[in-house]
């Protein structure tokens, strides 16, 4: 990398179902102020601003134009980058890219979703091809139901295992002041929640959340001046998967992986591990903040990220390996099933991971020291953005 970069400020809003008290720009502004305050900077110190969301969800075309006053891009360089569910991570990577380029010292990244102002289900249905399968599209619930059914058939996993992870997520959310759903759940509560499509119950699916997040990213020289606790960005990767319409006679049932062959999760994780000398994630990584729109995704993706062996995900749930006090904590923040302002969701993973590295996560701070954190984002028809954050360079 031309220039090493660090996260020097993080911010997010309190996440809620509805925020009629603010418009979209005011919502973003809350996160921007929080991140600037955290970095002890003002807009004068910011050289460029990048932002993104799900473009069709609020129905705003080129929302970065309207947002310019509220996010501070007025008379500054910047752009909007949108990549679906991964947007929040892509925007973060864009800020890393800006700061690493040598052209900018301090960069602000802003992501948001105000889902009380648009129709998210319609937005998600319109991901699907209008000339093929949009007519019967339901959205992510159907996708994760299919993955869950397939996983149960293949692995011996029972619904209880998903319920265990859902309760784990809720325990994290209840300790996280920013989290949206804080429900004090029991296994029974989860397993009695409304069935949507077997085995997807309401509580296994992420909520519809209003919220925003922001990051301040700085080049190495600048980062050391701004903060005593820079969180170094060790690496980042983006990987798509485009195999949904590729078919091979005789291939295995494909319902768990959305397409034939290797998945974006496997490729992204292996790529970033290899580049950074990670041979055993459970040893080399201290905490993971992953993008699990559904608890069923979390179970399955432990395996695809290579955290555990194939078929072992549900046993991890049984053993509590990924609890906050467990051997390999995943989503101490409560994760996406508790809080999902879609465009911002992937950035919140990075915000939360950075807080853990700094030791500033408060009630949901891990008791063990965090030297290295791993984050993921999920979107599209299986797209992954993974990052590695580190306490030292």
């Amino acid at each position, binding site marked *: 990398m031309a220039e090493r970069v660090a996260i020097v400020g993080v911010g997010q809003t309190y996440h809620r179902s509805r925020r009629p008290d603010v418009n979209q720009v005011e919502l973003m502004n809350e996160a921007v102020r929080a991140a600037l305050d955290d970095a002890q900077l003002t807009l004068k110190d910011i050289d460029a601003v990048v932002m993104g969301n799900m473009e069709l969800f609020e*129905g705003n075309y080129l929302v970065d134009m309207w947002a310019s006053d509220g996010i501070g891009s007025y008379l500054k360089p910047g752009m909007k980058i949108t990549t679906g569910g991964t947007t929040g991570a892509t925007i973060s990577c864009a800020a890393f890219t800006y700061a690493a380029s040598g052209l900018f010292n301090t960069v602000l990244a802003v992501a948001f979703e105000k889902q009380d102002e648009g129709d998210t289900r319609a937005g998600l249905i319109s991901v699907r091809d209008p000339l093929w399968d949009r007519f019967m599209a339901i*959205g992510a619930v159907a996708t994760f139901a299919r993955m869950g059914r397939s996983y149960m058939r293949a692995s011996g996993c029972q619904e209880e295992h998903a319920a265990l992870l859902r309760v784990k997520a809720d325990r994290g959310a209840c300790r996280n002041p920013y989290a949206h759903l804080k429900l004090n759940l029991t296994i029974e509560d989860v397993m009695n929640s409304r069935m949507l499509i077997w085995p997807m119950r309401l509580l296994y699916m992420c909520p519809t959340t209003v919220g925003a997040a922001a990051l301040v990213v700085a080049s190495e020289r600048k980062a050391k001046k701004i903060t005593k606790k820079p969180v170094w960005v060790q690496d980042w990767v983006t990987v798509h998967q485009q195999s949904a319409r590729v078919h091979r006679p005789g291939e295995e049932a*494909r319902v768990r992986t959305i397409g034939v062959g290797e998945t974006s999760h496997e490729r992204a994780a292996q790529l970033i591990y290899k580049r950074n000398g990670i041979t055993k994630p459970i040893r080399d990584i201290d905490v993971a903040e992953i993008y699990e729109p559904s608890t069923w995704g979390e179970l399955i993706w432990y395996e695809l990220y290579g955290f555990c062996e194939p078929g072992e995900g549900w046993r991890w749930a049984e053993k509590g390996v990924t609890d906050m006090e467990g051997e390999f904590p995943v989503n101490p923040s409560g994760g996406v099933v508790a809080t999902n302002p879609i465009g911002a969701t992937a950035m919140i993973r990075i915000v939360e991971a950075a807080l853990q590295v700094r030791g500033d996560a408060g009630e949901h701070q891990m008791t063990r020291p965090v030297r290295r954190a791993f984050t993921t984002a999920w979107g599209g028809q299986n797209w992954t953005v993974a990052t590695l954050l580190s306490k030292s360079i």
Partner: protein
Amino acid sequence: MTEKAGEEFLVMPIPLELPFQWAAGSYHGRTLREIKDNNRFVGIRCPQCKSILFPAAMVCPLCHVKVGEDWVELGEKGTVEDFAIVEMSVLDPSTGKERVESQPQAVIRLDGGAVMEHRLEEKDPQKLRVGMRVEAVFKPEGEGGKGDLTDILYFRTIEK
């Protein structure tokens, strides 16, 4: 900031309807035309990895080579790989209105090797199973096939 009790905020509803004309192009278009005109499913084979692209497309996403003219008939019969009974209300993609998905949705492996998603005629959960054999039922001639997957009514069971 959180919502203050008793305070009322203005919310402005703006319903939007945007008309679109989407072009299918020659490859995807051929798949759709075959459904409409001949009630059959065709994909195209990648000359390099021999995978089937269905619906057909100009470039194989895996090998990144242009496909030729190796069209493959996939058959109208297949095996259910997965099915789901939808217990939630869903949005109709063409109108944005709520609807009930009354028929089970299924992932069907056509005998020619490709996989597609559609609905099943059989609604009785007791009679649904992974591995069941099904075949496509097309709209009767004269009922206005549109050249998309709604030209198929559903897949019906052909073997218990």
